């Protein structure tokens, strides 16, 4: 489809209806003595969902373009697990350290990004399979380490599960809600920064050598995208845990709508990612009492799509 305005209308409609559903439906019902407070919690959850879904999809789209790799995303590259590990370590260290969870998440994400990239680089080339393999292996390792950290730190098994499978329902306190406010602003800024690099990403996706002949500083672009992506994913994961498939699937859907240009793909991914994550959350929290970890729902949608990608595009 090459009618951007229609596609935009569709995406915005998706986001608005997902937002409306997520505010209207919840285990707390729509009446009762504390309705005002319940609504506030839902709005907070809405903002978290928009930021998390938007960030994961934008980072996925940027990495796919940068690495010319349709399977790149924060989850398949192990970056989300790395962020979860960093977050768990800060949580386990104690209450005061827990306030620095976003920093721990960022450190874990960046370290993983560099590690996976280094592992995947064979004779100066990063192949599609090499990157995914390195990501999967790292992801396995770090998931185990999250579990280990949680057990040694005497945290509950439930907390470990939510950390590895994601959720939008962290219990905010007066302090963490301010930290989250800062994270939300930084996330939007980070996404805007990636958007400002759309042109370079377009050129990079046609190949590194071609990009260099066209005067793009590929080293610089790669470093910048890696660092911004790590900051974004690290901060988001420190609140939501590692959510799978949104970063992988959404950019592909958006490219089907808008074509490959990043100045359209990136903002489109933000809106679509936010909408799809909110819809997943509406399902995850209302189907089963108490709610499901988010990755269960995103994986149920994402895996068939992943298989389709593997079979048709590679």
């Amino acid at each position, binding site marked *: 489809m090459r009618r951007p305005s229609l596609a935009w209308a569709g995406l915005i409609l998706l986001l608005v209806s997902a937002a409306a559903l997520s505010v209207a439906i919840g285990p707390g019902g729509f009446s009762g003595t504390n309705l005002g407070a319940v609504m506030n919690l839902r709005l907070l959850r809405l903002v978290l969902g928009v930021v998390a879904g938007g960030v994961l999809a934008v980072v996925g789209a940027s990495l796919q373009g940068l690495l010319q790799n349709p399977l790149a995303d924060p989850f398949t590259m192990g970056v989300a697990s790395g962020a979860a590990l960093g977050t768990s370590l800060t949580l386990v260290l104690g209450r005061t350290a827990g306030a620095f969870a976003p920093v721990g998440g960022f450190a874990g994400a960046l370290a993983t990004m560099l590690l996976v990239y280094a592992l995947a680089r064979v004779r100066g080339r990063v192949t599609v399979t090499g990157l995914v393999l390195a990501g999967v292996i790292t992801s396995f390792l770090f998931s185990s380490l999250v579990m280990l950290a949680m057990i040694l730190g005497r945290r*509950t098994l439930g907390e470990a599960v939510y950390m590895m499978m994601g*959720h939008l329902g962290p219990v905010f306190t007066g302090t963490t809600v301010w930290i989250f406010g800062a994270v939300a602003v930084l996330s939007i800024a980070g996404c805007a920064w990636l958007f400002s690099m759309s042109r370079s990403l377009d050129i990079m996706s046609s190949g590194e050598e071609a990009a260099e002949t066209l005067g793009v500083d590929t080293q610089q672009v790669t470093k910048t995208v890696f660092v911004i992506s790590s900051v974004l994913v690290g901060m988001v994961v420190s609140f939501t845990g590692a959510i799978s498939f949104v970063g992988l699937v959404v950019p592909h859907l958006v490219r089907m709508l808008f074509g490959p240009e990043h100045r359209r793909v990136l903002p489109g991914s933000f809106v679509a990612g936010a909408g799809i994550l909110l819809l997943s959350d509406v399902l995850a929290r209302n189907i089963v009492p108490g709610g499901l970890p988010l990755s269960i729902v995103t994986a149920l949608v994402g895996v068939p799509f992943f298989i389709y990608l593997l079979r048709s595009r590679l």
Partner: protein
Amino acid sequence: MKSSLGFLGSGVRGFGSANGLRRLVSIFLMVAGCGQRQASESELRVVSLVPSVTEIVYAVGAGKALVGNTNQCSFPEAARSAYKVGDFMSPDLERIVALRPSLVFLTLPMHRQLLDKFAELKIPTYVSRPGDIEAALREIDTVAQLLGHRTAGESLVAGMRRRLDSIAPSADTPRVYAEISGTPLMTAGGGTFINELLVRAGGRNVFASSAQEYPVVDPEAVLAADPEVILLLHPDMSARDVAARVGWGGISAVKKGRIYEKLDEDLLFRPGPRIVDGVVLLARLLHSETTRS
């Protein structure tokens, strides 16, 4: 309905595996116990893998027969210095077997694999799994009989029943949210032991209708239920932390400052001789307002 579950879960295995054999075996052990009291007491080598049963063993005066228990068996004081066979969740089979026990107390589903091993090794076992207060009282009787301390058990249970009956039913039944984990929020549903203690203490568990035993709950569900009392049954969070949660300021319990922390969880989770203490503790907390005024 819960008591039938508890009954199904309990029974002696080792001489045979059917539940119906429980009485037979206990009679056999009792006869052995009564016939040659001296001899059998010195021969009885008991290992308890269940903290509540450890409490029963000591409460009926059979502490001497206990040759091993778990790291979680913390009451009474004497239980702490007994030989430890590992954690409640993961006791060490070799340590247990090395003690040459004549009877092992365990529980399900925790010790499923051990149960089969003991059956192979022909080590007699007793599965403790009381589903409610009534079953817990019956279990005290049974354990006392198995240990040859029948009279001590009977008088212990009679005393507990008297104390339970003396707890007067109260007119108001405050809505209670009992939190057993803070991240994620987790509570106890209607089918749990602690739910029954709450009811006996004159409270109403706001999540009693949950189908799961220990469900994860959404924070907004707690707001909507508007509990009048919050019990914190996990050590990592204080009443102040809970009051500081965003949106919780409007909950009745928070407004009235009725969040209770640092409770003795063992009184509420262990179906042993101290359950009545648990009910008394809860009754005092739930109705502290009325007692004060």
